[in-house]
């Protein structure tokens, strides 16, 4: 399966977690695709941590506004009914529990809901940006990522990389499965139509509770 098709599947499945009226922050990269797969009729308000709500689609070439960019610096649009604010207000919204769902990528996620996605010591240290605030502050934290890194499990018993946040992840959506984080550990909720429970277990470093597993619609 191509990387693009994997990404599309993940984005579509995450989209099902969103509902009308929600305030949602999508991380840089693949999570931004989720905006293309909202439930029918759902009016979702996207927050951009660089300072506004009402994040809309990429503008047509030639109509870009240099002051209207997303948290990745790309030109975007602001929908009617949007609102701009400074960074203190942006993170008051995030930290204060006013964001319903945040969707982030991960390098590693573990059985305790720990997330590591901001640095690899001695190699890449991009910084945490807003990720630490988003994971602590959002009501629901969804990790959206490929199930493995070239075959190596990214879902582990314990994260080995420096954490972004401790025990904050609620749901993991990958190209192979949907996994819930519970106080008792990880619960396999759905598997992809083109895989098996055995294959998911083999590709997962942490123990999965397996009961009433259904098939992902995408």
């Amino acid at each position, binding site marked *: 399966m191509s990387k693009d098709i994997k990404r599309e599947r993940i984005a579509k499945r995450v989209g099902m977690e969103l509902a009308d009226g929600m305030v949602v922050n999508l991380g840089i990269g693949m999570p931004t695709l989720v905006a293309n797969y909202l439930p029918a009729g759902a009016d979702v308000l996207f927050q951009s941590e660089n300072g506004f709500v009402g994040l809309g689609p990429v503008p047509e070439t030639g109509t870009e506004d240099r002051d209207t960019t997303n948290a990745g*610096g790309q030109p975007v649009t602001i929908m009617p009914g949007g609102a*701009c604010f400074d*960074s*203190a207000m942006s993170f008051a919204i995030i*930290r204060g529990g006013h964001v319903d769902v945040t969707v982030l990528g991960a390098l590693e996620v573990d059985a305790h809901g720990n997330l590591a996605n901001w640095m690899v010591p001695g190699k890449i240290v991009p910084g945490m940006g*807003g990720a630490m605030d988003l994971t602590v502050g959002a009501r629901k934290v969804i990790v959206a990522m490929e199930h493995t890194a070239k075959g190596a499990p990214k879902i582990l018993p314990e994260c080995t990389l420096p954490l972004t946040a*401790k025990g904050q992840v609620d749901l993991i959506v990958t190209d192979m499965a949907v996994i819930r984080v519970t106080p008792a550990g990880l619960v396999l909720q759905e598997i992809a139509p083109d895989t098996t429970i055995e294959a998911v277990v083999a590709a997962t470093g942490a123990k999965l509770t397996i009961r009433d597993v259904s098939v992902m619609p995408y």
Partner: protein
Amino acid sequence: MKNKITSASEALATLQDGMTVMIGGFLCVGTPEGLVDEVLQKGIRELTVIGNDTGFPDKGIGRLIVAKRVKKAVASHIGTNPETGRQMHAGETEVVLVPQGTLAEQVRAAGAGLGGVLTPTGVGTVVEEGKQKLIIDGREFLLEQPLAADFALIKAHKADEKGNLVYRRAARNFNPLMAMAAKVVVAEVEEIVPVGAIDPDEVMTPGLFITHIVRA
């Protein structure tokens, strides 16, 4: 009252080697590039720079990093400027990475006369190292202290002659916070209008915070 409108050169006349400088902007959106030019031209060195990120090698704070004018950078993100990471790993530049929301509150705290704020962000991560932890209602918080500066270099869309500022869209970001937190605050603006041309309800940063206004 003293005329606040001046040149970049006069506005930064008292900027010296070793000072702490806040620079507004988010990936260079809302960054005062003209003031960065002037810092470079003046040959200022050994700066401690506080900003959301370190921009790009050819833009914003990134240009100061590349020109080796920065002793210490405090930012939430350095990924868009590989030179920052290189200097950090080579031990040439000290880099302090701070969660973005914490950075915003630290700058605000300095401007607002607070001794610090308690945030849940970073608990259980390396961010908590060396910091006081307090438990409030059974939940852990980190005590984050204020961040002040000698200079704040900010960017606004519009100013009146008293320095009342209006920002546009995502170019607001850290600028209003930094305007409160430095001894000398220089605003680079795209347009200067007469006093009274901005309705009091539309002002985003009151002019009392602004020392100098420089035309972009």
